[in-house]
């Protein structure tokens, strides 16, 4: 196990070391001490290693992640796991705005709450939030799955394309072109698979039946002849 204390090393030095790891590396477990809310910790990782961060982190932690598993034992600042490609990021506390923004793959689990714009412009990432999410979440979401055990804030899924939004609690309001949809067997399989991957047994947490599904009405991004006057 490698331990890096950010009171002694800079984030740049830490990230440089992590970037130099090859896929075959034997240094597969890293622990980061004293993150003190610093930005861009463990960004752009390309090796299949596990990084545990012991404390609160600042902006863009674990951004652009590929293959790594990053666990944050604290809260995360703006844009955690932004543009993730693959791998897994887990936040033990709360996440700030734009968690998982623009992610194309991988899994982001937030054990606390996420604030505004969670999953904005998501493009294939799976996001599981055990608490609630703030307003304008999944704005212009294109693909992927957002699962929320708590409540969703205003304008959920505004201008959504094709992502699936599962919410178990209340939704303050839906954004433009976002509607509630019936939960098909295929949707349930997808939801169960995401929950299992997140380590949450579907049964003990209410199962797929406890969730409602929201998605695109497909009226905004498809041309509709009745809207011709608007062009």
């Amino acid at each position, binding site marked *: 196990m490698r331990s890096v204390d950010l009171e002694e090393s800079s984030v740049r030095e830490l990230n440089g070391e992590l970037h130099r790891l090859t896929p075959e590396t034997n240094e597969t477990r890293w622990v980061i001490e004293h993150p003190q*809310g610093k930005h861009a910790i463990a960004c752009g990782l390309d090796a299949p290693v596990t990084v545990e961060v012991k*404390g609160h982190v600042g902006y863009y932690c674990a951004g652009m992640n590929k293959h790594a598993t990053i666990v944050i034992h604290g809260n995360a*600042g703006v844009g955690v796991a932004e543009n993730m490609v693959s791998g897994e990021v887990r936040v033990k506390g709360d996440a700030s705005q734009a968690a998982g923004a623009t992610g194309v793959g991988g899994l982001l689990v937030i054990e606390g709450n996420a604030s505004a714009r969670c999953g904005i412009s998501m493009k294939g990432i799976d996001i599981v939030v055990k608490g609630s999410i703030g307003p304008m979440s999944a704005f212009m979401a294109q693909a992927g799955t957002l699962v929320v055990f708590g409540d969703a804030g205003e304008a959920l899924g505004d201008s959504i394309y094709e992502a699936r939004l599962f919410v178990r609690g209340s939704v303050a309001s839906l954004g433009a072109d976002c509607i509630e949809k019936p939960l098909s067997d295929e949707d349930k399989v997808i939801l169960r698979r995401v929950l299992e991957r997140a380590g949450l047994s579907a049964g003990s947490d209410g199962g797929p039946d406890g969730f409602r599904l929201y998605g695109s009405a497909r009226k905004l991004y498809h041309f509709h002849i009745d809207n011709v006057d608007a062009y």
Partner: protein
Amino acid sequence: MCGIVGLFLKNPGLHPELGFHLAAMLGVMSDRGPDSAGFAVYGSSQADHVKLTLRAASAVEIREAVAALGKAGAGDLDSVFHDTHAVVSVPLAREQEVRLLIARDSRVALVGVGARMELFKEVGLPEQVARRFGLSGMGGTHGIGHTRMATESAVTTRGAHPFSTGKDQCLVHNGSLSNHCGVRRLLSREGLTFETDNDSEVAAGFLTWRMQQGASLEQALSDSLADLDGFFTFVVGTESGFAVLRDPISCKPAVMAETDDYVAFGSEYRALAVLPNAEKARVFEPEPARVYAWELR
């Protein structure tokens, strides 16, 4: 960008350390605003006296100007000098007379007035600004601070925050307001005066105006949601109060930490990490369009 910080101490045992912690928080926020910095501290008060914080171009000039005020009729002023600023304590009965003398001297600007509030701002790196004024040695119950990255107006001391438009009232702002010209005209008709063209001064003036009409700090901030348009996170101080408000889409960052000893605000968690027992604090992000307010007991 800009960085803002605030610290409200619940534990009186920490009052002597207010400036020390506020200076550390400001130093961390240098990255967000290296152009200039400012802060207001709510310290001790003297019965029937008011504190006037004055500013001049240099440490020499402020001493000359205060001496000149004395000769011009203000008498022997009880003054404490901090670099380019001086805090002058004046009996309430003589406040207007001394303020008239100040207004006649083009070398000095009156930056803040209050029973307890002292207000300092200057161009330069926040860490250096805090050191020049000796912030670390200042005690008090609460304080707010700002590190500026100018986007809307020039890098000048006048454009630095906090802005004070009423006694013991001050505000720091991260963001930009889009209807400040209209609101300034409205407030000017109501009798308020403004020192700058800065949008944030208008926000401070709006709160002063509402509180003059009897609103509490909390109500005044709620009213601003309807009348101020733009992006903002405000941290506001009054003689006994401390409050935070974010715009309805939470455009600008904000994070708070609360323990039994204090409530702290920072643009980023990094600014809170320097506080005692920060790792054990309840850390939360203020919700958009919700007023958070604390009052001294």
